[in-house]
């Protein structure tokens, strides 16, 4: 029961944070709301016995990346977003309807379908407790998932190169 309450609280925090990111007019608030979302997500990971992922989520996203965002927002001193009258009434209406349609479909789906929960993967909760989350992740990263792990390195590298290319281009 407590676990369920915990889940609903975190879920609410995550979703509300996400909505606030797009809804709030001030970029600073948006960034802070995003931090709330990330924290909520970290809590959800915790409740799934994925302590390592939860900690990484907090350190990397909520800590490092969002701080960078905040820095930039403050540095270039973005004030309130200048709202232009959105001249797309049809899209707005149709988009709302379609979006609600997709949402209704998804809700219907989750209401009717038994999803596979817990216990089915290589590392059910009991085994995780045995090997320890960090150890399990580390082990997987150099065995079964060594290729995605390395590929991720390439992905990050490409990201860095891309950022440098774009920044340098502007600097010239």
């Amino acid at each position, binding site marked *: 029961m407590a676990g369920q309450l915990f889940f609903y609280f975190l879920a609410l925090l995550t979703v509300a944070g996400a909505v606030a990111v797009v809804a709030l007019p001030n970029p600073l608030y948006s960034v802070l709301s995003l931090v709330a979302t990330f924290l909520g997500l970290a809590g959800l990971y915790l409740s799934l016995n994925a302590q390592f992922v939860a900690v990484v989520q907090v350190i990397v996203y909520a800590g490092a990346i969002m701080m960078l965002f905040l820095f*930039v927002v403050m540095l*270039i001193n*973005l004030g309130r*977003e*200048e709202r*232009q009258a*959105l*001249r*797309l009434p*049809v*899209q707005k209406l*149709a*988009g709302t309807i*379609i*979006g609600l*349609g*997709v949402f209704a*479909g*998804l809700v*219907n*789906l989750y209401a009717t379908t038994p999803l596979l929960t817990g216990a089915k993967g290589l590392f059910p909760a009991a085994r995780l407790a045995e090997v320890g989350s960090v150890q399990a992740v580390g082990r997987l990263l150099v065995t079964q998932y060594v290729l995605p792990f390395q590929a991720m390195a390439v992905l990050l590298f490409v990201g860095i190169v891309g950022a440098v290319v*774009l*920044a340098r281009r*502007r*600097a010239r």
Partner: protein
Amino acid sequence: MIRYAWLIPLFPLAGVLINGLLGSRVRDKAGHVASLMAGLSLLVVLGIAREMILGPGGSHVVPVWTWITAGSLSVSVSFLVDPLSTIMLLVVAGVGFVIHVYSIGYMHGDPGYPRFFTYLNLFMLSMLLLVMADNYLLMFVGWEGVGLCSYLLIGFWYEKQSASDAGKKAFIVNRIGDAGFLLGLFLIWTLTGSLSYAEVFKAAPQLAAPAATAIGLLLFIGAMGKSAQIPLYVWLPDAMEGPTPVSALIHAATMVTAGVYMVARTSPVYVQGPGALEVIALVGALTAIFSASIGLVQNDIKRVMAYSTVSQLGFMFMAMGVGAFASGIFHLMTHAFFKGLLFLGAGSVIHALHHAPAAQQQDMRYMGGLRSKMPVTYWCLVAAALALAGVPPFAGFWSKDEILAGAFFSGHYVVWGLGTAAALMTAFYVFRMIFMTFHGEMRVDHHAREHIRESPAVMTVPLVILAVLSVVGGVLPGFPPDAGWIHKFLAPSLAKAPGHAALDEGVRVVKAAAQAGAQGGGHGTAGIALIVLAIAVALGGIALAWRMYLRDTAAPARLERRFPGLYRLLLNKYYVDEIYQACIVEPIYRLMRALFDFDQKVVDGAVNGSSFLTVWFSRISGIFDLRTVDGAVNGTAGVIGFFSQLFKFIQSGMVQNYLFVMLLGVFLMVSAYLFR
């Protein structure tokens, strides 16, 4: 010799490569190179024809290489030499060679001289592939090739707006036909599992009648496009914008008969689905009379010929439709001779008048009295006209009479009636053309008069060759009437497949008529009556033309005054072009135009900003909020207007809209799953 059949298309290919790649070097020799290549092809064809005609005949497949294999399907590049393709080869290579030679004179001095001969050789290559293919796919290669060449050659004088428009028209109309042809091929392949003639025809007797009818009709759509039948004939008269040798070769003698050849080739399938044949017969007959009536009043010498060609193609399809395949091919052959000749003769006239104002060079109202100035051209054209009118013993008589007899004896009385009426008009308009051009007083522009002289030998010799063929081309293979040598020769190609009842019937009935005619039997009387009637119709048409255009020259104007509506209707070709323009072309054009408009994305104003990030932020906000739908779409009404708004709305360059369309797709997909 038959083993070397692969040489036949190889020579024109060599010509294409030489003239195409070295065009600037060969320059004035391009015509000679191309003609040499066409001549070499003709030599091989003659060798093969000699073997086929004098030898045992039969059907030979000359494999070259395996082209496409896919699972059980295997299509090879291999050539079929059998009686039908032999006849076609003789026509294509023979007339082709003659016209190549003629073109050396006609195109002399044209800036596009090497280009012209490159296209001409490319056309020969494609046409030879078309008739020699041993499977439908290779035939399609040739089919597309000749279409492409026709397109290129109609628009050869591209600086003339009308020429390039005519090219476009031919192209679009032919695409409609090609779509039908392709679908026909797919159906053949689905139903018989093969595309090679031999296997398809082996499987043909097992085809259900509806399936065979469907194949037949789809293929006939292709034939309608290529061979200019109602309702797809509209491109051929406009195709006369091309150089005259092209009109003679492609748009009279060879390419436009490809549809007829294809139907004849597919006869084993057609006889399984009689419904398709009935449609062909009717369309052919209607086309014959429809375009002959238009030809009655046209003043442009080449347009008269063009409508005449459409009409004669109608006769050929009539033959196909009533099951008299051999007669249709026979008419195809004789028509190639005399219609090629008519065009070359017209070209010779136009060539002589090239000092006249451009609008008058082809207008018969500004000719007249040319007989004494151009005797060779005159006499050749008279021979051709007699052949077209169907006066014995000229070539056209034999073949046209066979077709009409075939229609009559197979019980297609309506078709026969329409055909006979068309024959009367034919005789009339062709002699109207002769009289207006060569007889009476000279109405040529004064400046141009002294420049009129007989064309050079390189042009008149081809005329004479074709004139000889127009005289004897019917008697030699076609005598005795209706049971001539050509039927016996073609029989294996056309009647080979089992269950060829309709065809056998057609030929047998006509033959019986001739035999019975000799014995004075029931059918025979009818046969003789038909022949007499045909001659009477031909002579009647000529006499009428003589009366109206030589004796009582005021008669046409009188008739015009008396039936002004009919005259205008005919002169304007029943307004078919206008109807197409209003009902089909215009709406499509508008739709396309609208589509194009929606796609003109809005490029927003210059992006200013000092730092990297602000630029990006401003861009983002710019894309999200500032983009506006550009100008209103005016003047489009109804459905089109709606579509234009819709498309403009979605392809506007705005990211929100793109996302919206994506989301819509997702929504539809989700609904496909959840609300199934």
